[in-house]
């Protein structure tokens, strides 16, 4: 494969990525797009901290500030963290369960392009009259009255990208249920595949409420309905419920894959089986289930009444139990292991105390009466950044270093990796630790400035300096990526030398069909088992035979582009004369592409046994 890509011209490579249905290439697309949005969201974060560095600042206006915080939150959650995690799931999960691709490769590509066009649409708001400004939660009481088209961009952009995420999740579920290699039972699945499974189930159940909420909001704002308009008998609290029924599971959609990443890293670099594997699986499923029972803890102060508050408070605190199980299992995995401190292990090691602090403030917030004090203060901001940055973003950095060699065949520089770690780790605690106290001292969240003489100056300054350190860390990572790609030193199957799971049994990057012969899985950590039995690789579970592969297709791009196009018409409906034709043309593109897909037979192609044998003879194995 690598020689093939080298010969290809630039245009051909682009076309290859626009039409690909290969899960490994889609993973790279997710990482590129998610990484881009991560940088955009990061720049917004830096602007926020610049504005808040000193009191009475007029670096940005109040209105612009609202747009920046809204876009920062929305971008980071929907367009950066989740797609990057979906990217790693795409890259690694099929390899870990011993599959040649996901169940529906075409749908996989469609999911990516929907997310991508939704994200682009949302961000175009900056150039088309102003970004959304009602917060990432877009509470209806604010959003309905927001002037301009900002919130419309939010509604339509998230609707399109949410569709992509939903079908991505369904695809992963079907893949894991149906496509595990021979011997790969559920209870032998690596933890990252397990967390992918549970997170996908959460996507399946959590995104429909968001879709409903966004649809109601779309009708209220663009077509004159009154679901959330109090003056006409609507109710804004319904939006809050719909949003948080989605929103709380969403935070677990983010953290569970990160838990999976760390589980792989802890056991690989402690060179030990994951401690309490079955309890880890149990805790993952339980967290997923409880995640749906707690959404009202975001709404304690809306006046649900003491009974409802008490029920949701208890349910919220219950989640700390399975989370605690996981923390102890990670600690016991390291205990007595021969621990190797690689860059991924640095992130994993630092994750434990950072995330536990976020969990503790979570339980504090979950105490309903106390939440009346904390709510909408910087304390909440500190809480969720501790869990999201200390958990999810650390996980993303760890996974980037850990799986980079598998995805790209080169090893990121370890020294630069550790510099990134220290800069980011110090910057993170500098930025967010002090925010707990800012909150307790009374600084509300989402304010565009503060007055001097209230005791907030030094702390805000410290917080802004921390943001500088984090930015430097990210820049060092980018330098690392560029340097590694330029040097292009190729590595073998198992570059960390301690690989335990199936992805380390095949070349880096894997051939496009992944496994020449599906491996026979004999237990948890299959590669490790074979290694301890004195073997180099897996025993094949099937004779060498033809492999059936799907054809590339440009249709997913067109389906998504049609929706993107139509969204402009919906947005300017009733304002511009071209609105309705644009809606119609856009939908024609989408449904026309779907029709082409349905009527045109595409049976894919076969890689013949002989071609596979040829490669064999070139000297990998006898």
């Amino acid at each position, binding site marked *: 494969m690598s020689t093939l890509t080298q010969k290809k011209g630039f245009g051909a490579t682009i076309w290859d990525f626009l039409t690909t249905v290969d899960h490994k290439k889609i993973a790279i697309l997710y990482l590129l797009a998610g990484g881009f949005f991560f940088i955009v969201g990061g720049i917004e974060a830096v602007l926020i901290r610049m504005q808040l560095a000193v009191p009475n600042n007029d670096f940005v206006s109040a209105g612009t500030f609202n747009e920046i915080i809204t876009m920062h939150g929305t971008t980071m959650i929907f367009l950066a963290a989740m797609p990057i995690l979906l990217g790693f799931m795409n890259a690694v999960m099929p390899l870990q369960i011993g599959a040649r691709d996901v169940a529906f490769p075409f749908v996989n590509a469609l999911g990516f392009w929907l997310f991508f066009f939704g994200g682009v649409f949302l961000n175009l708001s900056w150039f088309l009259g102003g970004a959304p400004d009602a917060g990432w939660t877009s509470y209806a009481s604010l959003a309905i009255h927001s002037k301009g088209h900002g919130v419309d961009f939010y509604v339509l952009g998230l609707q399109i990208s949410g569709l992509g995420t939903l079908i991505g999740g369904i695809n992963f579920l079907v893949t894991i249920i149906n496509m595990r290699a021979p011997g790969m039972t559920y209870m032998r699945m690596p933890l990252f595949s397990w967390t992918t499974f549970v997170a996908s*189930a959460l996507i399946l159940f959590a995104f429909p409420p968001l879709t409903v909420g966004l649809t109601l909001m779309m009708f209220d704002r663009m077509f004159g309905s009154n679901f959330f308009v109090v003056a006409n008998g609507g109710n804004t*609290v319904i939006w809050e419920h719909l949003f948080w029924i989605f929103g709380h599971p969403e935070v677990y959609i983010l953290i569970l894959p990160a838990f999976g990443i760390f589980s792989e890293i802890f056991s690989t670099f402690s060179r030990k089986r994951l401690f309490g594997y079955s309890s880890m699986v149990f805790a993952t499923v339980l967290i997923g289930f409880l995640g749906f029972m707690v959404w009202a803890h975001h709404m304690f102060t809306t006046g649900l009444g003491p009974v409802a508050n008490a029920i949701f408070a208890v349910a919220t605190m219950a989640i700390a139990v399975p989370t605690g199980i996981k923390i102890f299992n990670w600690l016991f995995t390291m205990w007595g292991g021969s621990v190797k401190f690689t860059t991924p292990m640095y992130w994993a090691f630092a994750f434990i105390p950072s995330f536990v602090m976020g969990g503790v403030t979570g339980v504090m917030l979950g105490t309903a009466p106390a939440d009346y004090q904390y709510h909408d203060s910087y304390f909440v901001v500190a809480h969720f950044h501790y869990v999201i940055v200390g958990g999810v973003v650390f996980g993303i950095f760890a996974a980037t270093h850990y799986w980079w060699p598998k995805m790209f065949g080169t090893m990121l520089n370890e020294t630069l990796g550790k510099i990134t770690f220290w800069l980011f780790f110090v910057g993170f605690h500098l930025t967010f630790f002090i925010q707990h106290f800012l909150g307790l001292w009374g600084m509300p969240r989402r304010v565009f400035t503060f007055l001097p003489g209230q005791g907030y100056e030094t702390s805000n300054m410290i917080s802004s300096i921390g943001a500088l350190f984090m930015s430097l860390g990210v820049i060092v990572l980018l330098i690392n990526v560029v340097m590694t790609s330029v040097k292009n030193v190729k590595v073998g199957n198992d570059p960390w030398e301690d690989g335990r799971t199936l992805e380390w049994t095949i070349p880096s990057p894997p051939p496009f069909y992944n496994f020449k012969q599906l491996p026979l899985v004999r237990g948890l950590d299959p590669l490790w088992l074979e290694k301890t039995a004195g073997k180099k690789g897996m025993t094949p579970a099937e004779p060498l035979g033809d492999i059936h592969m799907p054809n590339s297709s440009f249709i997913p791009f067109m389906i998504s582009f049609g929706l993107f196009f139509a969204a402009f018409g919906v947005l300017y409906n009733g304002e511009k004369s071209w609105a309705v034709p644009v809606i119609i043309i856009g939908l024609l593109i989408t449904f026309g592409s779907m029709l082409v897909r349905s009527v045109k037979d595409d049976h894919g192609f076969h890689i013949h046994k002989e071609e596979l044998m040829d490669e064999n003879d070139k000297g990998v194995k006898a």
Partner: protein
Amino acid sequence: MANQQLNSRNPRVDLEYRRRKSAEEMRYQVVSFSLMIFLTLVAFAAVAIKGFTAWFTAPFIVLLAFVQVIFQLYYFMHMSHKGHEAPSLFLYFGLFFALVMALAFMTIIWW
């Protein structure tokens, strides 16, 4: 039936067995189909016949609908077969979450 895995590559091996199995399957389908038509008629009758109050007919029809859903899922969509554990698990969880949400909307949203 994609879900019935053969142990042998020879499709004739348990032809007899599979024929009997299919016949049995067919009988279930016909029985449940006639039952469903019958239940639908009962539902119409409950509305058409004078003398029942709405307090009786409404819950009664809902009950019949519930039975119909079970028939539909288990006999027509083959959820009773082996290999459908995962779909039924997801169905029941989805149902459960939806009911929790409906309960919350009915109890804790104030107007």
